[in-house]
């Protein structure tokens, strides 16, 4: 099939993986390096088909470690770059994700989550990498992770991920899941002019003045590309503003907390969530990804029984919407957190609630979505 143009304006019937690929293309991604893994393979296949016709580069690397490395290199070569994977590949990518964080390299990593651990359930859903998304690589750094709950959001949030990557000069995660990735739904792609894109914040300073790791007021340094005579040095070692290795506690203190702080301090601008029925809620269901769609039904069923239930859907899982959850915890009886894992984001809810409201986890070990009745039962219990 031959398509023209990076932005396929119009109405489509496509699955989440394809929509994520199209979102990347619409965002100006011109480099994809990946490795096949169920259920993310379709992202790579779509990029393999579309990128060369648009003058972009697709390369299938020998493993996920190489894929993550290659997209970092491509970013320093001046392109917007992306990779896509699932659990086992996500684990492999962790070291280079840390390199991307430490070197403040803008790029996007899509994880279409599946059941784990280890090889687990390649073709079945999980939401078991949420904490790994936050803490997966060693060391301290901030994380931005977006959770689509529909193919439309796979398109929209991948664009958002690229924009956030450029704004905060860091890798950004899109934490999709197997059901959303393989679900086929209507996706509306707007005209290119209607899509708001953040360009790379390339420095306008001369090479002698530019410091690749000197932050601006928003705690983010300007970016540059290789080959423009800036003669930069980029290293994973703790480094100073010039990028030179500076392996001392003093420099660590000056430079490394900023990697966490640049997300934390800007969280107000980054955090996104979708909520409904919070005004008089006694119970709030906190959910994300495919589970949010099941939870939606459970919430409707509960309301039908007269329970005052609200729905709080995380769009950014990281940074976690702490102020909103803290505020809610002061006026609700309890939170219900259904997730397709044995408890991950629930701990964030619990932490923010700080004992002011009860927190009920509705776990699922993976391989399928919740029965709405189990979520309903938890809502009823939380309301007692």
């Amino acid at each position, binding site marked *: 099939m031959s398509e023209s143009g990076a932005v396929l304006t119009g109405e489509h019937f496509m699955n989440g993986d394809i929509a994520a690929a199209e979102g990347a293309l619409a965002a100006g991604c011109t480099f994809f390096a990946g490795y096949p893994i169920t259920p993310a393979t379709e992202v790579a296949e779509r990029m393999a088909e579309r990128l060369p016709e648009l003058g972009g580069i697709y390369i299938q690397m020998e493993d996920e470690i190489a894929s993550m490395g290659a997209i970092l*290199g491509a970013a320093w070569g001046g*392109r917007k770059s992306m990779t896509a994977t699932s659990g086992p590949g996500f684990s492999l990518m962790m070291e280079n994700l840390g390199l991307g964080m430490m070197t403040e390299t803008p790029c996007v990593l899509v994880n279409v989550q599946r059941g784990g651990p280890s090889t687990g359930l390649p073709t079945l859903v999980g939401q078991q990498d949420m904490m790994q998304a936050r803490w997966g690589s060693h060391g301290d750094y901030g994380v931005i992770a977006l959770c689509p709950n529909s193919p439309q959001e796979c398109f929209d949030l991948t664009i958002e991920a690229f924009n956030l990557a450029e704004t905060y000069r860091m890798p950004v995660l899109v934490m999709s899941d197997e059901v959303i990735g393989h679900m086929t739904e209507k996706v509306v792609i707007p005209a290119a002019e209607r899509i708001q894109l953040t360009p790379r914040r390339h420095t306008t300073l001369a090479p002698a003045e530019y410091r690749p790791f000197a932050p601006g007021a928003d705690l983010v340094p300007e970016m540059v590309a290789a080959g423009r005579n800036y003669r930069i040095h980029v290293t994973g070692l703790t480094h100073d503003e010039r990028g030179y290795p500076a392996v001392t506690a003093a420099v660590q203190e000056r430079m490394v907390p900023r990697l966490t702080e640049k997300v934390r301090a800007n969280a107000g601008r980054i955090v996104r969530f979708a909520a409904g029925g919070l005004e008089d809620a006694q119970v709030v269901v906190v959910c994300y990804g495919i589970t949010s769609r099941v939870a939606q039904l459970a919430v409707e069923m509960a309301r039908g029984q007269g329970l005052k239930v609200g729905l709080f859907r995380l769009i950014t899982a990281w940074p976690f919407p702490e102020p909103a959850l803290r505020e809610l915890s002061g006026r609700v009886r309890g939170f219900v957190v259904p997730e397709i894992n044995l408890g991950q984001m629930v701990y964030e809810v619990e932490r923010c609630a700080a004992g002011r409201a009860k927190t009920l986890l509705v776990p699922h070990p993976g391989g399928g979505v919740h029965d709405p009745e189990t979520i309903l039962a938890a809502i009823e219990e939380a309301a007692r």
Partner: protein
Amino acid sequence: MNKQERAAGESAPAGNPAVAPPDAAPEGTAGRQHPKDRLLRGDRLPHIWCPTCGIGTCVSSFIEAIEESGIAEERFAIVSGIGCTGRVAGYVKLDSFHTTHGRAIPFATGLHLANPELKVVVFSGDGDLVAIGGNHLIHAARRNVDITVICLNNFIYGMTGGQAAPTTPFSARTTTTPYGNSEYPFNVPHLVASCGASYVARWTALHVRRMKRAMIEAIAKRGFSFVEVIAPCSTLYARKNRLGTGFDLMKFYHDNCEIRHGANTAEVDIGFQERIVVGKFVDIEKPTFLDRMQENMQRHTRKG
């Protein structure tokens, strides 16, 4: 002068013939500068490498290769991994990237494909490129990606204190082979050539000019080009095997290298303190990864 004064950083008085006179002017006299300082991050010298380590010599040849390559300096991008040789990226005043252990080649691949105008040179050590990075090495060679890889082989993991590497010769002693290495080492030129590299050469740190010429050829070569440089590790490899210092290893190279251009790479393995075959082993023309990709796309668009 007593010990305390000496320790406080004072030089010996001018009359003492044992110590060099106080510094007159920076970098030689009358504004003279070492010719290679232009391409070095002088504010980071002295470098971390030991006395009689061969890495500095190889960097010296490399700088000359860049200057004589005829290619604008700003087009170069140096990518290295982790290890003593991995520190090269930090000292050369070009766009340079010090990446994760073993992963310089995939990073370099992405960098090159994103901007094929760049001259991407991976400069890293044997442990980084052939052990943890081995998979990436063979795939980049297989794809014939148009990058240059300079592998400095000192037969050991230097930075971490002298452990065995996949290039350590049989019977050599290292901290993890206290009874002598029992593994077969890689014959690196053979490995890389068999994967499809366009250019494979091996020299030692002693062969400064031939090494430079090989680097120039490798950089100019279209396709995956690989230069292995055998270099002395004094503090660990030489010392632990009672071979003296790097100086003695350089003398060993002098007396035991055989230049055999076009040698069959299957025959260039290196035994412990045995002859080292050096030379240019492979120099062929074949389409690069990008060439083939473009060829396919052109064929596709012609079919319409």
